[in-house]
């Protein structure tokens, strides 16, 4: 059992993590953020990545794919941006967003850890 703060702290401990945010993708609001600093405004990232998630969800519906998005990976020159959609029991659509330093991060490990954070969060 974890609350949002511990979930974010765990996300920040992922090897290579630059910042993390828990985002409500209907409104684009970051419910909580950690790290980021000057190089990454997590509130802006939260709102912007909401459009990414919404576009993908809509595309899935248009394609009639009866499946769920587990995560979305965006690879930059120097960073990985991972968006993990959370299966919430309520109606809220949420995702966990983590930006990772590409040189220090282990992608497979990071995905695995995010999965565990989601399981612990119990929403």
């Amino acid at each position, binding site marked *: 059992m974890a609350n949002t703060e511990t979930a974010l702290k765990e996300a920040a401990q992922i090897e290579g993590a630059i910042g993390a945010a828990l985002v409500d993708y209907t*409104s684009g609001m970051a419910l909580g953020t950690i790290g980021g600093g000057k190089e990454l405004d997590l509130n802006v990232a939260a709102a912007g990545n909401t459009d990414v998630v919404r576009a993908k969800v809509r595309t899935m519906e248009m394609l009639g794919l009866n499946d769920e998005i587990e995560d979305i990976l965006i690879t930059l020159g120097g960073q990985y941006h991972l968006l993990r959609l959370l299966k*919430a029991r309520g109606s809220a659509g949420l995702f966990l967003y983590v930006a990772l330093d590409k040189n220090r991060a282990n992608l497979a490990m990071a995905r695995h850890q995010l999965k565990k954070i989601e399981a612990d969060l119990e929403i």
Partner: protein
Amino acid sequence: MTATATATPVSPMLTRLAAERATGALLRDHGTLYLVDGRVVHAESPESPGVDVLLTAAGRLPREGWDEAVDRAGALGAVGRFLVDSGRLHDGELEICHLGAVFDAAFFALAPAGGPTRFRYGVGHWFGTVRPVDTGAVERETLRRRELLDSVWPYPAVDRAPVVPRPAAPGQPVGARQRTLLAAADGFRTPADLARLLGRPAFHTFLDVRRLAAAGLVETPYEAPPPPPPPVPAWIGEAVATTPDPDIALLRRLRDALEAAL
């Protein structure tokens, strides 16, 4: 732009209360913000569904479960805590739902409106503190939400009017969330009514309705036209007066050609 936005806070009184680390209730026309040590711990607005509606209408919690929590922990000001400790909700779930309700109510409470703003020192809320939020974050989010609504579809009238669905174009995709909303729209319910019925935050419903209106899936009610543009400058009048008679024959040919083309 950014400089002006930061120079004019949503509520100067809220900024002052945060600075003095005040505890109490900030009462405004469209809602109330509860502060503890200058941070927002709860918010309520008649326009947005409360935590109880979000939890019970969406089917997460039976109504009796909520009522019992209020009966047993309301007097102690710890309803939220009780819901978790009694195993009805998980910690993260409570936080997310409560934060959603707080930002939703704050959006309305901090809406630009005339009328007095009062602060009652020492007043707390029976729900209890879950996760305090900085007033700056609440103000920033409120501004962001206002801008987001207008960037999606700049017709505020759709927020208040009954939602009247329009038929989708052949092949036009409609998301699952939006389908549920359209199915509940009976032509009389306003977005706020639909939010309460579906157990969704009011702002989220406003946003969905504006998106649907922008996609032509919901009627946009007629709004009073914007104020007329300023009268033409004097030089145009002079130019018209000094110009010889227009070439009527040319204008007729132009009109006929346009009509034929359309």
